[in-house]
């Protein structure tokens, strides 16, 4: 039973940050698209802006790995 709880906890650790990242990127995406329409030279910054929320899901992945492989 403990293994099931651990698996669920690991799944939650990655799923919740993934949803949060998706939500954040859904807000950043249109803003970045609008900015790029006016200033195409911001493309590198735009890619980074999109990548910044991915930190959350990456940390979620690390936590999930720590739960599963402790």
């Amino acid at each position, binding site marked *: 039973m403990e293994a099931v709880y651990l698996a669920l906890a690991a799944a939650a650790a990655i799923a919740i940050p993934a949803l949060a990242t998706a939500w954040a990127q859904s807000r950043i995406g249109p803003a970045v698209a609008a900015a790029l329409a006016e200033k195409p030279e911001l493309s*590198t*910054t735009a*890619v*980074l802006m999109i*990548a*910044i929320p*991915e*930190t959350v899901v*990456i*940390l979620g*992945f*690390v936590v999930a*790995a*720590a739960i599963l*492989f402790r």
Partner: protein
Amino acid sequence: MSKVRVLGPRERLPEALRTLQDLSLLHLAPPTVPPGEPLERAHLATREERERRHLLDVIVDIDAALEQLRVTTTQPLRTASRAAPGDLVRWARLAWRVRREAERLRLQLVVLEEEKALILKYQQFFSAFRSLLEAEARWPNATAYHVLVRGSDAGTIPKLRAALTAAIGDEFEIYTQPLASGEIALLIIVAAPAAARVEGLLAQAQVEEIPVPAAYGGGTLTAAIPAMLARLGEIPGALQGARKRQQDLSHEHSGELARARAAVHDRLAELEALPLSGVTPRAFVLEGWVPTRSRATLEARMRTDFGDAVAVSAVSTEEWASDEAPVVLSNPRLFRPFETLTNVFPLPRYGTIDPTPFVAVFFPAFFGLMVGDVGYGVVLAGLGLLLHRMSKHGTLLRNVSEIIGPCALFSIIAGFLFGEIFGDFGSRQLGLRPMLFDRHEAMMPFLLLAVALGAVHILLGLGLGVASLVRRHPRQALGRGLSGVMIILVILALLAAVKVLPAGFFTPAAIGLLVAFPLLILLEGVVAPIELLSTLGNILSYARIMALGVASVMLAVVANRMAGAIGSVAVGVLFALLFHLVNFAIALFSPTVHALRLHYVEFFGKFYSPGGVRYQPFGRWIPARPRA
């Protein structure tokens, strides 16, 4: 950079400016005017101002003419001499004339192409109803309507037939013919008395008749088509003639216009440099920055050209603020392509640190650790070589290809450390063993490695911050240094707590932290603890190296398993290759973005001070390089 002052007799100012322009070493700046001195900024005379405005117009004409002739110049022109008297006037006339002629030819080509397309459209119609159209002239009491219907609207034809029958009985004929374009050509022949009602019906059904172009005699299509076909025969010759004339024009004038563009830009730069000089009734003074290693060259050239008449002297560093000095990035050949990555940010201020060498070392290392596969590394190296061959020196593509090289090398090295060739293919089929650890299984050691690298990178950033701040803002430098020490103490305490280090380390580290904490607040204010926590968060952010690395190897392993999981070996191998291709594409994009992010957000934030002014020496005009 050294700031220098050039002094000389006023009448020799234009000559001095020309020499400085030939040298292309001095970044001009308005001279500092000590109070009470009779020095004033030079102004353009009315004649010179008029010339400047005229030259701006000439440049527009030359650029437009060269663009119309599709001439691109990317190499600086080695003009032996400057524009001779009268050259500028001649070039202005030439540019105006060539621009207009080139525009006329361009327009002529467009018109001819459009005319050709129009006639070809009519030709299809004519071919479909050739016999009927020829007979059309023989029907004195009939009116013909020529209609094109889209293929998707074919259903309207029976409806049209029914509507015409209801309106005029059997006093009409409809002929249809599908065309190669997918449209349907309709020829409707109606008895003359019923023509008005038919026209009303066609208008009501929003069916448009093909207009007969007035240029070909107007009237009926039958009458116009022979003229159109004759014209179709003439058009290729006319097109060829216009293109030949365009080539001749380009051949005849592009060299002269390119020379003119360089000379006009040079003259404009000279005129625009004049107001940056200071003058008294008898003397002139010019000030600016020159790279210290080039100062002797500048002094020697001025001495050769002007003897004792013009003096070049260094302005002492006490007289100028470092923020005013322009910046030029100077990196070894190996690191130079990485300036592309640092150029995303504004230039660093003068006297601060250029991060390019650090990016050149850490970016490929982080990228390599994330990709960590010999197979992907070799493919990447091949891609880099291909890009290198396809690109020209100094272009963005060439820089990218030169960045790919070290990234591929680090990927291969990391691949050997982790024992990976296309995921676990190397270990299963080739017997490759990891030299460090297997990323597939040893996630915790990989996580510790990633975070440890993060700690080193961030501590290096803090160290660079101290080095760049120590002269101008010693208090801030001390605060940043103390942050670094506290980070080290936190790491020591944590390692002692988890028994990686002897437990005896814990207490001194904790005491050290307790002592350093109030000092940090004293030096950097109440926000300091938040910044310290944020710095610790930055170190943890390097865990992405492990996360992306593990994701990459997992995808590669899944790809390899596909080969055996699907019934047919050939289909399995094909799927496996496709999956590896997808993983390779992800491995190109994600590690690049995240390695960049680790530099831009985590590393640069510790020391980078943007806001530098680019070093732009007053010199001869150089055409802009293409980006790719």
